[in-house]
């Protein structure tokens, strides 16, 4: 601690460091996801493709085995949208985790834990199986958002009792809802198998992850993610106040009921948009907010912003591992995030238990 700046808190100083670290990691991960892949395209070529201006003739490819047009299309039509979808999905899931943990006043709440992702998945599968996905690709995310919202309302009703959420109730309600929604999902998919095209679409989507995503997926995810994150930032301070108790929050100008509804809507937008393009990718919304909160504290403005950046980095890095670990094959993104996230979840559970016992 430097004695010359006694007014700056250790947290405020760490905030700068963590922000720099998060942004650097995300940029590095994004670059890596653009540069690495089955086709070997030199970095300089990727750069000239990305930043345009370069004439076709200037594009050099490794060994000359790749047509310039091919390289261009690999970078612009495969790698770039995949990278952007990864950024959006990571940011959306992490911010959704921040909002859920704040809403339920509980560090164990997350989209994958309390059934929000499963609700979104069911909404999307229903939209696909009724053939709505064939009519307009925007109907699938709308279905996912509606499904996520419905599952949130159900869990909030079950788990909240007199303004507090018990960890046990929340987790049990989440487990039950997850199982129920998965069963419904399987049922709908089994029925949809009659129609080949619909089945193919569901199957592709159910694979999870962000492989083979194109610009249409970016367009599908972007509005909901942007709206959800904007709502989260606008209401971040209100969430700080809510965590001090509803009476205190009200006395500091927060309409609690309205805030809860806004945040449930924001969470549904985020999770629904993410699920609509990437299926169920677990543990992002659990791990990222928690690690960021440990680093910079629980003030939600910084927490929302940095979780968005860190979530994007987490998904992109996980995707890189998924692409390269068993090359030439690919792992599913969800497998990688679960590999990191599940042990972390158990660690959290043990830590929270220790806390309750010492109260």
């Amino acid at each position, binding site marked *: 601690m430097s004695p010359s700046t006694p*007014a700056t*808190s*250790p*947290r405020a100083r760490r905030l700068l460091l963590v922000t720099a670290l998060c942004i650097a990691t995300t940029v590095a991960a994004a670059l890596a996801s653009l540069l690495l892949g089955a086709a070997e395209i030199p970095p300089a070529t990727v750069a000239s493709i990305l930043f345009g201006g370069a004439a076709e003739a200037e594009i050099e490819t490794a060994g000359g085995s790749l047509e310039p047009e091919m390289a261009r299309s690999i970078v612009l039509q495969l790698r770039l949208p995949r990278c952007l979808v990864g950024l959006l999905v990571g940011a959306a899931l992490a911010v959704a985790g921040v909002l859920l943990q704040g809403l339920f*006043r509980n*560090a164990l709440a997350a989209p994958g834990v309390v059934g929000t992702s499963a609700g979104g998945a069911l909404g999307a599968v229903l939209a696909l199986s009724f053939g709505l996905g064939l009519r307009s690709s925007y109907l699938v995310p709308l279905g996912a958002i509606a499904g996520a919202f419905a599952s949130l309302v159900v869990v909030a009703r079950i788990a909240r009792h007199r303004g507090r959420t018990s960890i046990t109730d929340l987790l049990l309600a989440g487990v039950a809802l997850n199982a129920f929604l998965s069963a419904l999902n399987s049922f709908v998919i089994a029925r949809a198998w009659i129609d080949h095209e619909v089945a193919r679409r569901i199957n592709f989507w159910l694979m999870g992850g962000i492989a083979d995503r194109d610009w249409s997926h970016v367009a599908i995810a972007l509005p909901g993610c942007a709206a959800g994150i904007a709502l989260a*930032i*606008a*209401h971040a*301070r*209100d969430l*700080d*106040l809510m*965590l*001090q*108790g509803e*009476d*205190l929050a*009200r*006395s*500091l*100008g*927060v*309409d609690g009921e*309205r805030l809860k509804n806004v945040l449930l809507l924001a969470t549904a937008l985020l999770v629904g948009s993410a699920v609509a393009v990437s299926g169920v990718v677990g543990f992002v919304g659990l791990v990222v907010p928690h690690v960021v*909160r440990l680093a910079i*504290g*629980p*003030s939600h403005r910084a927490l929302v912003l940095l979780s968005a950046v860190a979530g994007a980095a987490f998904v992109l890095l996980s995707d890189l591992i998924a692409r390269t670990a068993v090359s030439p094959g690919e792992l599913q993104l969800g497998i990688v995030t679960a590999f990191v996230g599940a042990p972390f979840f158990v660690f959290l559970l043990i830590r929270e238990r220790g806390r309750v016992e010492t109260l």
Partner: protein
Amino acid sequence: MLENVTLALGEAAHAPVLVRDLDLDLRAGSLVVLLGPNGSGKTTTLRLAAGLVAPTSGRVLLDGEPLDRSRGSSLRRLARRVAYVPQSYQSTFDFTVRELVAMARYPHHGRFAAPSLADRRQVEAALERLELVPLQHRIAHTLSGGELQRVQLARCLASEAHVLLLDEPTSNLDLAHGLEVLEVCRALADEGRLVVLTLHDLMAARRFADRVVLLQEGRLVDDGTPVQVLDAGNIRRVFAVEASELRSGSRSAYWFDRLQS
């Protein structure tokens, strides 16, 4: 100011009534103590005054205007003028003392705006006044009850509200810390604010209050200076104890015996 305020739970004619026909005119620059046994309506009266609940009938006025809690912006405007400290308080997650005090400034700035220099100065001043500077980076739930109560007072100060409503601010404190909180409240009233406390300690009320409001089952029993209100008759009627006053010079204390029914 509370004008013929009644608050009942629910609409039905037999719904339990928390506060009935309460008429209070509270003036700036005074320390008012609400006294009464458990369930007499002290907390409800504070919550009504803070605009946390709306009266079933009657009006709550602030500076001559009815409290308007209809929209977010009016809630925020109210939050800049009236500060409230609930009886029990538990913070979720690890907020620091400084972060908690800075929350008093939230109603002062816009949704996307960063805290201004003026905001930061108010927070600094409040921390200094309540001697919280050495504790400012501590996590709130590692503090003692007395320290936490000082944090709440610092939050009220930082808000620049001119009405402070505190629900049993001394309930979990030892003698010295309880006295400290009351001394701060006294000083804040002397500076021109309206400070309203609920207490259970009759002697503290007698010593620090300008005015005592005695409540029983949601009704006003008496309202006046501590010496007027806290006489043996009122105490016997409301608290069911026999109070003998012991005097020593200008100081006085009570000795209480439970009434045999």
